[in-house]
């Protein structure tokens, strides 16, 4: 592609210059977007769609950080577009699709590899025999103190994209799936704990983690998958907490 003329023009302060990776080599990549207040990254995309190029490919649903579908990279960092404000004075932004996942179009990725790993840890509860009633469990029980801060994963893929191993595809279960496995192993209602622990501490499990902490740094829900991985390593040695 030749030099984009809009890149060499001065950027008037009231506008934001947004550069977006596009799938079609002929598609416009740079847009000067009128600033509004407040403005999330999602609002930038909606403005481009409305005012500049209706064919731009991106995804969102709930816009309140619950669906986890608007994840993309802003200047290299994985974010949720809906909950990331454009700071005052900011007038340059680069947007790319998540790393390590096939691009469907423009900023839309195929989450299949992410969910394949999620599926590999058997992410569903395998209830103990005879579990017919909700268990009695005090809110401050040790089990819930491990689990509660690690729930709320919205499967947005930010950690997957930011994992230091993301480029070496791909014999690692990954931070989100391991976090889910940790939660289930800690859950006293689950019958598959020993098998789960064996599975996640095998070859492509916790030992592949290099503790770069990319996952924990970007999690938009403030979860700490790296801590979950450390915990799983400890349980391998010490056994599950019971």
């Amino acid at each position, binding site marked *: 592609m030749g030099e984009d003329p809009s890149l060499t023009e001065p950027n008037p302060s009231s506008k934001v210059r947004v550069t977006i990776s596009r799938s079609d080599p002929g598609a416009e990549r740079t847009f000067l977007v009128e600033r509004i207040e407040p403005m999330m990254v999602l609002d930038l995309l909606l403005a481009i769609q409305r005012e500049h*190029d209706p064919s731009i490919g991106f995804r969102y649903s709930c816009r309140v950080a619950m669906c986890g579908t608007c994840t993309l990279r802003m200047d290299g960092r994985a974010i949720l577009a809906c909950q990331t404000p454009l700071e005052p004075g900011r007038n340059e932004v680069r947007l790319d699709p998540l790393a390590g996942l096939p691009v469907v179009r423009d900023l839309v990725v195929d989450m299949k590899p992410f969910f394949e790993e999620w599926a590999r840890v058997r992410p*569903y509860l395998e209830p103990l025999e005879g579990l017919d009633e909700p268990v009695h469990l005090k809110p401050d029980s040790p089990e819930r103190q491990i689990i509660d801060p690690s729930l709320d994963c919205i499967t947005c893929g930010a950690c997957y994209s930011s994992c230091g191993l993301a480029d070496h595809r791909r014999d690692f279960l990954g931070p989100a799936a391991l976090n889910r496995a940790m939660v289930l192993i800690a859950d006293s209602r689950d019958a598959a704990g020993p098998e789960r622990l064996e599975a996640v501490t095998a070859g492509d499990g916790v030992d592949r983690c290099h503790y770069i902490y990319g996952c924990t740094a970007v999690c938009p829900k403030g979860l700490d998958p790296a801590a979950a991985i450390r915990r799983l390593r400890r349980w391998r040695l010490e056994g599950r907490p019971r």
Partner: protein
Amino acid sequence: MDTDVAVVGSGGAGLMCVLHAAEAAPELDITIVSKGAVGRSGCTRMVQGGFNAVLDPDDSFELHFRDTLEGGKYLNDQDLAWTLVNAAPEVICELETKVGCFFDRAEDGSIRQKAFAGQAFDRTVHRGDLTGIEIMSRLLDQTFRIKPRELGDVRALDLLLDEDGEVAGLALLDVRTGAVAVLRARVVVVATGGAATMYRIAAPAREKTGDGVAMCYRVGLELRDMEMLQFHPTGLLAGESRLTGAVLEEGLRGAGAYLYNANGERYMERYDPERMERATRDIVSRASYQEIMSGRGTPAGGVMIDISHLGAEEVERRFAGMVARTRQIGRDLAREPVEISPTSHFAMGGVVIDEDCQTSVPGLLVAGEDGGGVHGANRLGGNGVAESTVFGARAGDRAAVVARERNLRDPEPAQVAVSVERALAPLQREKGPSPFQVTRELKETMWEGCGVVRNREGLIQARKRIEALTEQAAKISVPGPPQMNNAWQEALDLSNQLTVAHTMIDSALVREESRGAHFRSDYPEQDDARWLRYIVVRGGQNGETEVSLRPVKFTRKRPEPDGPPAEALEVEDLEEGREDLKR
């Protein structure tokens, strides 16, 4: 492509249906059709408050039932409401012991139940103030065990019937590739969610464009209570940002937040001096709307909510999520007033169904917000996710039975052709209006004309405007490739929204009284003598909407105190309504 059970929609109702159909009949081939990401679309994920269920021995089905009817102003289908109340505890138990959810616990280790507006007993099961994500995440996890066929990013265009008028399947559009296809199915379950996004200020996820209700309308199914749309009183105002309309949780008012107009008056004094800001959703929404419309709102068209008098630390501790939400837009709920407005939230109306989610078309089931009658004229907080999961489960159970009884049938070819042609048209047109502009006008029209407060003139204007917009929508042109084309998808969403908007306005015109969420400034009183009747609309032969009124059947409980009998409808009532529809 063939399947046994096709489920349209992958929110709480859709995934619960899949789970139940698979458990009841493991041999069935089940297909999920979702125009967004499977399990990550729709509104169940966004549910804050919780799930109403009778678990405490001191509570009772009768009490939950009464609360639901009082909330619904006795417009509810009583058999549906009774089903909801009775099945809710089983579903909570199933979610905890089979699905893997874990709800908040009380100090003694039992499931904690909190107080929620409009209920005589503390019966709302929850997980913090984000209950929906726990339910949806765990239901999505179940799909990795069940392994249904997942058609994510695939839009259902239309229901397809065979020559006998029975369900044959669906016309589909693959959003990623732009390819169209026919899916034959023994049973189709429609669970797409309502159409509350069609307002300028609205809370739901973007997928909620009434696709299911519009599809059902197009094949001639009856819709009821379409005038009943709930507005949540505290939607965030964030200028042109898409965040506008996002709900600030109900608990703020419960905790003692004040509402002010632009003149600094606590205006609830004029509307409900006793309960003030703690009045029910409909009353507070109406009061705020009237302040704004009378010129006492902020320049941006809002009012202010202020809870800073509790002290910043206290607000940060109790409402961390809401404080974060306001800071994201440069405000601080813990320290200053924040601008809000009523926001369009939930459609009580929908397709007429029975307790097993069956419709008048054999093989076609409807579950969740797409169904009508459970909530009557207003929904209680905490009865929404209960409805999705209870009726989703029942639809799944029923689908398993029906799928065994029915054969695959061939859709009428003409129907397929019409559906596909209609879908492809915007992409093929060289010139025409942009879908985004027409959607914006639809939202403006509904907000002004069929909003929190309605009147005859406004509704008639809105109706004319919707007709004009429908004509424009038929000329829309979208550029770009067929793959993952948001503008094209917006055009298809818009078409469904306009269909539903029509039915809402027609129903709102006919109901010449005020009840629950429906408030007519020209008929401000609730009129039980004439209006313990529900409005049914269906598509007629020549594109006209047929409207009829039916008396509510008090199969279990009469309005209290002893209300008047719902005698047969006087003919003039209906004629009056029809005349309005012709103007």
